[in-house]
């Protein structure tokens, strides 16, 4: 193990160096650019045996990744925002062809108006494409998640693509202390990828992606649904195995100071770090507050969320994206659905925050806890969907 000063982008590139994918096809986009720039220098310096394909667009990049994955290779790439949007139709194809591609998604707001800073509208928009979604709190976790993602994706029960999210600029461009495992330890942890089906096995020719009509398509989608179900125990097993290796705890979510908490907040990405500080501060004042860090958004930890919400008096859900016309943001909607049918009758309030990189500080999160505490204590009625730190 060694300790390096790395940005989130560099940390993921470092993981990619150790994971040594057979093929990486990518296209640059801010704030992901530095990640691929760093990885391409590893390719140029002969540190990896990766075939680096510099595609003419993200649509082509993802298409090349799918081809390489069907051919039986370990495949990785990375993108952000509009780049992810341009991959759209290929994201669904990657998942439905069961290609275990691992992609770093450096979260950035989708245009328009044009903005290059962090929010989660890009990956949240792709939440139904059939990929596993893992969010990172900081550079360390971006590295940790990238390594685990490959093992999860390539598991024979899963064979699904995985997105590893890190917050644009906030995590991607901030230098942090990152513990890097030894190369052999990572190689041993993920093992060699042995594809179940491969296009390049000439002695056993196969067809990938045939026409599939009303007579079989639905059954194939049912199999895909099952793969996402089977991903749940695999995500947990891989998390626990990595935890043993590093001493850092991993699971679908982290319950921070939730034991006797009456007020809970769900957050994901870098905001968790800030909220953690606010919780510590409020705990010192004797307030029974806790924090739920959502690490794995797909598959969504339905039972775990409902279990943690059970003893609360009020729950706030922070969404760094909006789902226009829906009942709040995506994490809020999922959380409400998870609690439905459990008999839980507490107020659940949604806070849309940080769109387009709007800074979210201690002060705002302190205010959020204060507001939700009033809701719990006085039964005060407020709007279910609120906007944190937007000018009136």
């Amino acid at each position, binding site marked *: 193990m060694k300790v390096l000063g790395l940005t989130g982008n560099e940390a993921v590139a470092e993981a990619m160096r150790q994971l040594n994918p057979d093929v990486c096809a990518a296209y640059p986009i801010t704030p992901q650019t530095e990640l691929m720039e760093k990885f391409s220098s590893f390719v140029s310096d002969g540190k990896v045996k990766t075939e680096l394909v510099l595609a003419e667009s993200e649509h082509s990049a993802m298409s090349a990744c799918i081809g390489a994955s069907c051919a039986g290779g370990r495949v990785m790439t990375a993108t952000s925002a509009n780049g992810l949007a341009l991959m759209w139709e290929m994201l669904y194809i990657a998942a439905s062809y069961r290609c275990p591609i691992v992609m770093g998604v450096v979260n950035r707001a989708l245009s328009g108006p044009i903005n290059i800073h962090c929010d989660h509208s890009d990956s949240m928009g792709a939440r139904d494409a059939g990929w596993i979604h893992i969010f990172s709190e900081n550079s360390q976790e971006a590295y940790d998640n990238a390594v685990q993602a490959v093992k999860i994706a390539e598991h024979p029960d899963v064979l699904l693509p995985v997105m590893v999210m890190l917050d644009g600029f906030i995590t991607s461009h901030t230098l942090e202390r990152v513990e890097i495992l030894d190369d052999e330890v990572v190689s041993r942890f993920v093992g060699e990828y042995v594809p179940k089906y491969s296009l390049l096995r000439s002695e*056993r020719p*196969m067809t*990938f992606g045939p026409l599939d009509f009303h007579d*079989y398509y639905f*059954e*194939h989608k049912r199999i895909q649904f099952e793969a996402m179900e089977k991903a749940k125990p695999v995500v947990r097993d891989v998390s626990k195995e990595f935890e043993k290796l590093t001493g850092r705890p991993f699971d679908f979510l982290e319950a921070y100071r939730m034991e006797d908490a009456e007020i809970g907040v769900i957050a994901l990405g870098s905001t968790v770090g800030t909220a953690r500080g606010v919780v510590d501060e409020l705990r010192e004042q004797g307030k029974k507050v806790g924090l739920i860090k959502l690490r794995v958004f797909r598959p969504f930890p339905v039972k775990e969320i409902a279990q943690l919400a059970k003893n609360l008096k009020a729950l706030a859900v922070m969404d760094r994206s909006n789902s226009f016309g829906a009942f709040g943001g995506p994490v809020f909607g999922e959380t409400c659905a998870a609690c439905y049918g459990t008999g839980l009758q507490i107020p659940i309030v949604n806070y849309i925050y940080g769109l387009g990189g709007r800074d979210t500080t201690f002060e705002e999160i302190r205010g959020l806890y204060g507001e939700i505490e009033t809701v719990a204590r006085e039964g005060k009625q407020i709007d279910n969907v609120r906007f944190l730190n937007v000018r009136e």
Partner: protein
Amino acid sequence: MSQKPEGWKDLTMAGIITEAGNAEKFETGSWRSDRPIWDESKCTSCLICWIYCPDSSIVLKDGKMVGIDLEHCKGCGICAAECPVKGKAIHMKPESECEL
């Protein structure tokens, strides 16, 4: 295709087809609107039609033309157009005028 189709647990993920050349088992001749009619008495078995057929619908036996596989022929008409025999050994006839 006549037996009951498999349930999802018995199918290969992603619809991957692990058996090469199994398109033979899938009837595609029903798309046809024009049917090739072969006149054996004019045919010289030059096999130009066999070379040009974009499917594999020209049936041969011992190197001789013996007929057309109507289960897979889509009626493109290339065989009839390319037939070099004077007066044509293959001509196209609308399916509506053909007996089933």
